């Protein structure tokens, strides 16, 4: 029995933390949040140089040959830092190519993807919250037309992994033409989104796309759950720090039982929930039969926890918490993103029950 991180896994997280401390001091994050750029390119390049973007890709193709757990541990730290980088879509597109691509597609894309020379993203959502492979409706074929919503870094991506009817997946190079991305005024300014319109765009299908899209979705759920845990744990930390600094009635507000109990309740909500994303990532790597339900449960639970944690943390900050100037808003908005992207908690709870075969079906 070993349900804890290994020394290597801890070092991996420490390395990411160190980089984030160097490259993302509070003013830099503020700048990224208020600025026009889709993400912090310097930070993203350094993350890629450090190998964080190709952890899960084969060593022979420039990756580190690790698994989803390691990727999720990075996602956790990015969530903790509210890092303005296009990690999620890039990591998922890489996973999809590795699992469902042809040898030629893998050789062509994965080394450049692992190095960060090419930016990829996933174009999955359609109107009315249709994020799931079972719900995709764009017709497959060599020429692709239709609209995808809420594509992370859609304007900046060199390569898009597009979800198609029947759960098929195809690669579209944005430089080939027929791809028009327009920015969405999105709530989470640390992860910008675009609407992407395809008009007779050249599409290169993944041969095993339909066979792997569900598994890639599950990985996406685990990474969002990991980001949500990282964000929620940061909220708890911010709330605790603020309570120990802010003085009223001659003492720090951390002395008041109302505040202490609010923070204790938050700790009880947040701290044990880490195990849900650990477990979901671990079974994704080692017990695939358990992965779909565990991923759905982790996503549903942790995204609710993150929204709750962010709201409580704003409240602990009082009037200051309600200002644009207060950094807590980064996580409040990040929580809203994590909650909605790839389907909301209600949907994934319903999926969990279904995947566990409850009821008469």
């Amino acid at each position: 029995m070993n349900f804890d991180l290994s020394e290597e896994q801890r070092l991996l997280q420490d390395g990411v933390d160190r980089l984030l401390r160097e490259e993302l001091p509070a003013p830099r994050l503020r700048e990224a949040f208020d600025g026009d750029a889709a993400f912090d390119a310097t930070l993203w390049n350094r993350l890629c140089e450090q190998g964080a973007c190709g952890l899960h890709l084969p060593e022979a193709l420039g990756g580190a040959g690790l698994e989803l757990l390691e990727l999720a541990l990075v996602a956790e730290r990015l969530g903790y830092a509210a890092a303005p980088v296009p990690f999620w879509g890039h990591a998922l597109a890489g996973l999809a190519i590795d699992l469902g691509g042809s040898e030629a597609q893998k050789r062509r894309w994965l080394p450049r993807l692992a190095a960060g020379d090419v930016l990829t993203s996933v174009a999955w959502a359609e109107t009315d919250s249709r994020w799931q492979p079972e719900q995709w409706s764009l017709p497959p074929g060599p020429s692709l037309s239709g609209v995808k919503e809420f594509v992370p870094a859609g304007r900046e991506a060199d390569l898009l992994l597009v979800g198609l009817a029947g759960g098929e997946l195809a690669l579209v190079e944005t430089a080939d033409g027929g791809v028009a991305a327009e920015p969405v005024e999105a709530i989470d300014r640390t992860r910008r989104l675009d609407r992407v319109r395809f008009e007779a765009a050249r599409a290169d299908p993944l041969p095993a796309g339909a066979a792997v899209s569900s598994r890639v979705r599950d990985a996406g759920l685990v990474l969002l759950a990991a980001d949500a845990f990282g964000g929620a744990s940061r909220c708890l930390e911010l709330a605790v720090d603020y309570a120990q600094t802010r003085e009223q009635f001659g003492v720090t507000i951390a002395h008041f039982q109302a505040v202490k109990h609010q923070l204790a309740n938050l700790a009880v909500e947040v701290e044990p929930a880490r195990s849900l994303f650990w477990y979901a990532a671990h079974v994704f790597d080692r017990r695939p039969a358990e992965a779909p339900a565990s991923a759905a449960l982790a996503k549903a639970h942790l995204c609710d926890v993150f929204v709750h944690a962010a709201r409580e943390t704003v409240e602990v900050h009082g009037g200051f918490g309600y200002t644009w100037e207060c950094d807590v808003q980064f996580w409040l908005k990040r929580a809203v993103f994590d909650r909605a992207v790839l389907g909301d908690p209600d949907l994934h709870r319903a999926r969990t029950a279904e995947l566990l075969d409850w009821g008469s079906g």
Partner: protein
Amino acid sequence: MDLGYGPEHEAFRAEVREFLESEWGRDGAPAEPERERRESEFRRKATGRGYLNRGVPRRYGGSEQTPDVLRAQIIREEFGRARAPLEVPGAGMMMVVPTLLECGAEWQKEHFIPPTVAGEYRWAQGYSEPGAGSDLASLKTRAERVGDEWTIHGQKIWTSYAREADYFFMLVRTEPDAPKHAGISYLLVPADQPGIEIQPLKQITGESQFNQVFFDGARTPADWIVGERGQGWQVSRTTLRHERGHIGGADRSLQLWNSLMRLAGRSRCGDSPALDDPRIRDLMVQVLGYLRAQEYSGFTLLTRAARGQEAGLLETTSKLQYSRIAALISKLALQLIGDSSLLAPGLQPERGDERWLNQFMGSLGMAIAGGTSNIQRNLVAERGLGLPRDAPVRGEPSAAE
């Protein structure tokens, strides 16, 4: 990560299973009066094999095993699966034995531990008083040294199984002039004597497990004190630790969840099975999220305990997690049993779905016993998050101490 137990521990699991198969069987416990004899015989054998009473030295009737949290977990799992009895239930094994092992005099260990392990001595806890609940150290029951004896006057309350007990272990004030916490001693007291009057209290469920106990010149020998005079507070802390650890376990949450799943599996919402109802499914998966979080966190606690590492904040949250899960489950159960919730649950074994009302009420008991949820929140805040003590009670030790 590796959720397996490894070959050595899996071999141990196989050995435990084989033992259970041959010594306990599959039918669970027989009915009374056969049950008690069968259980104590089984416990003797299981202790002989090193499965029970592992932390108790052999000379006191235990099996004196090298600490191994994985083996302990395997034993809990396998005994649970076979519905075989673990150690003798009650405050004796959970509180008195660990306390005596840590703080007791040699003669006390020899005298009290073996019969407690064997289930021959039953114990009741004399801690809370009408005026001393969460603020336990303000207790007023006093003991005076008269010749070779302590003479005790005062009142204890919420004393579970006092009428069945052979002995009390209790906190009393022996140094009235000392500061609050320094004036308390830990005494062992024979229950069957004229100076003790026990009145049952009827609980919210209608049962009477707990009592109030009046001490009016009750006596106990001078050397039945555990630790020194005035050290009772520190001595008692060892036992509370044990009780918290026990209450916090994920095993009970899982058992409760399994019962709920069985209930949901045979309940209906309108014309369709309850488990087909989208609302019920949603609520149940919400509970499942908390349940799995506690279960998987338990794997981490186990991993760290096996390596002798601390788990920090996570350790302090266990009881509140369990209390929440039990409360959520009770709410769902009420929904599932429908109008059966209008029936008095009664205490007979043949009762129907309304027995879930006992869990509904019992979950409140769990949130109060062994440190109320608000006291637990102080503990999480102070010990887990490093927040300061409450402002209005300066000069008092914090919940974390």
